[in-house]
């Protein structure tokens, strides 16, 4: 028979655990509705602090001021182009830059319901998620670079490599499912990969990797971002921007995509595309 004091202690311990569980569950419940993306600045800091790989976005390929061709000089005997007085002002010299694209995936995303599992499993996932989100929200509320770095370190230690990529741990999808998903996405996007005038030029050596996020309805979320280009040499540097735009155009044209919703999380919600212009031999 358990001693009375022990009973009290055990009961207290059980209740405390149940309270903790309840508190966490309610806390999660609060977060199930999508959280507004946090301030750009804050996210960038957080990502920088924890990223093992730089996830700082290159400006989307449409930002013209980066690789703009030199301005044409007007015909030699003509005065410089003058703006028109009527509504659209045709400023002829500089291209107007587009608004900068949205920030990259915030370090902490809203976490939809994980699939039904055994209680202990739920607890495990929830606690893992809760800890990272709590830590993240702490960092946000502090709005302080020093403390965000500390939190970042904390996240690193607690969550491990997945947070090292600046993201929460995802619900794992099997390798086989991922392969099928990649094949399905390729089938839908490949037909839009059109090279135009770049076909047959040294631009064919440039491999372009884009990062893209899809909404659940299959539409493209925000703007694709240029992750990297390889194979650039003096003979094809002049085509780098154009071949990146060809890749971007492919994903924008072949949208919305039609893919299984159960593979959205950790699958096609946020992914990379690697475009190789030439046929693989």
């Amino acid at each position, binding site marked *: 028979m*358990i001693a009375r004091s022990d009973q009290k202690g055990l009961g207290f311990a059980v209740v405390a655990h149940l309270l903790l569980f309840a508190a966490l569950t309610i806390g999660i419940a609060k977060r199930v509705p999508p959280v507004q993306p946090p301030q750009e600045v804050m996210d960038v800091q957080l990502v920088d602090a924890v990223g093992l790989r730089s996830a700082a976005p290159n400006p989307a390929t*449409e930002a013209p001021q980066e690789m703009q061709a030199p301005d044409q000089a007007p015909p030699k005997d003509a005065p410089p182009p003058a703006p028109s007085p009527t509504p659209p002002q045709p400023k002829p010299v500089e291209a107007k830059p587009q608004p900068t694209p949205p920030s990259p995936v915030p370090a902490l995303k809203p976490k939809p319901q994980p699939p039904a599992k055994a209680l202990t499993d739920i607890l495990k996932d929830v606690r893992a998620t809760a800890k990272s989100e709590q830590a993240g929200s702490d960092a946000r509320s502090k709005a302080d670079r020093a403390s965000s770095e500390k939190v970042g370190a904390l996240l690193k230690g*607690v969550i491990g490599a997945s947070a090292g990529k600046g993201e929460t741990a995802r619900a794992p999808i099997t390798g086989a499912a991922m392969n099928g998903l990649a094949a399905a996405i390729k089938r839908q996007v490949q037909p839009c990969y059109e090279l135009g005038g770049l076909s047959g030029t040294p631009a064919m050596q440039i491999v372009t990797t884009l990062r893209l996020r899809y909404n659940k309805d299959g539409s493209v979320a925000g703007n694709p971002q240029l992750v990297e280009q390889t194979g650039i040499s003096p003979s094809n540097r002049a085509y780098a921007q154009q071949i990146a735009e060809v890749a971007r155009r492919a994903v924008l044209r072949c949208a919305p995509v039609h893919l299984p919703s159960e593979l959205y999380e950790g699958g096609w919600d946020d992914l990379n595309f690697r475009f190789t212009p030439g046929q693989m031999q």
Partner: protein
Amino acid sequence: MKTWHLLASITLALLPGAATAQSAAPPGPGPAAGAGPAPGQRLTVDITGGISNKMPIAIPVMPTPNALQTPAGATDALGNQVSEIITNDLKNSGLFAPLSKDQLRPVSFPQVSAPDYGAWLPTGAQALVQGFVQANGDGTLTVGCYLYDVFAKSEMVRQGFVVKPSEWRRGAHKCADTVYSRLTGEGPYFDSQVIYVSETGPKKNRTKRLAIMDQDGANHRFITNGQSLVLTPRFAPNRQTVVFMSFENDQPRVYVYDVGSGRKRLVVDSRSTTFAPRFSPDGHYILFSMIVNGNCDVYRVSASGGTPTRLTTSPGIDTGGSYSPDGSKIVFESDRSGTQQLYVMNADGSGQRRISFGGGRYATPVWSPRGDLIAYTHLGGGFSVGVMGTDGSGAKDLTNGWQDEGPTWAPNGRVLMFFRTAKGSGKADLWSVDLTGVNERAIPTPLDGSDPAWGPLLP
């Protein structure tokens, strides 16, 4: 008992940590082609093999803020013509598929800088060119030019061009060049001219006249009257002067001709036969071939006249010199080895070495304005136009007519013009082809044509 409870509590408290450790993704390499990414890592979809195609592009009629009369016509009519010139330039480059007229919709002046992307998306156009034509108070015209990415829904480039009414077509070509360069990464070439030999008459006795036209065939005019046989005209870099060979007075010699004044003079004061002239890229020198004592060699003379310098000395036929764009080297043809082949030398004549080693003979070399390639006529069974590296590597024939001959480069080094002679009739016509071998097309001229030379891009 207490100990057990304590242990249980500690274990429970540690569960999250343990659980997290179990669910943490182990760091590892990115997803291999055959395996999905490790949990927590991003999927990478590999797309290989792009489609070679022409980019669908919409070029609606350009509106005008005010329809006014100008020496070039009414501005609204000009807007229509400007969009047609741009459409033809882009279509004839072989890299674009402009929407047909029935797929286009009118664009209002305010929409020029605020495009209705939604209206263009269903057409499949990937790019949209909008603009306007406006009469300025001082008698000039402004051609406004805007390029949009339809699917990214963003502006790519905008530029305005102020032109004299007599040169209004240049505003259209400049806009087409802006669009072309921005979308392909290539240099511009639409705002340029071509000089060539216009031919007519029976095969035994062709009448040949020099003619100049815009690269799209417009503004065509003859500059000689056909009384003397004329051959191989070439522009000076400033396009104000032309060199060509004429048989007038039964003496085949090279003349330097001022297009504006119509005056001409001999390139060298000599009775010897001279031919195959070409300007240096800086306009200071004229290369030409001269036959002295039965021996044909490449010479160089100052463009303002004087004593020529002999650059080749072999007893073979050395002719057809062409400078590299930096002026440091010259490519020419010589049969010193027994057959016509290509040779490169320094601009002072030193360091002559053969660069063509494919089967057959090679002739009429022309150095690309980009400096990276040399175009040639390849003589085998027939004549083909092709390109090779400046060291002779990678020689590739691009055309396969019966006699395709005499290539000349567009200012951007991407397009070649040449002339094609028909078997039997001997009729010659101008043709062009893209460097990638696509878009072999006939250039319309009033009569037959041969010996084209593409002038530089207009400033």
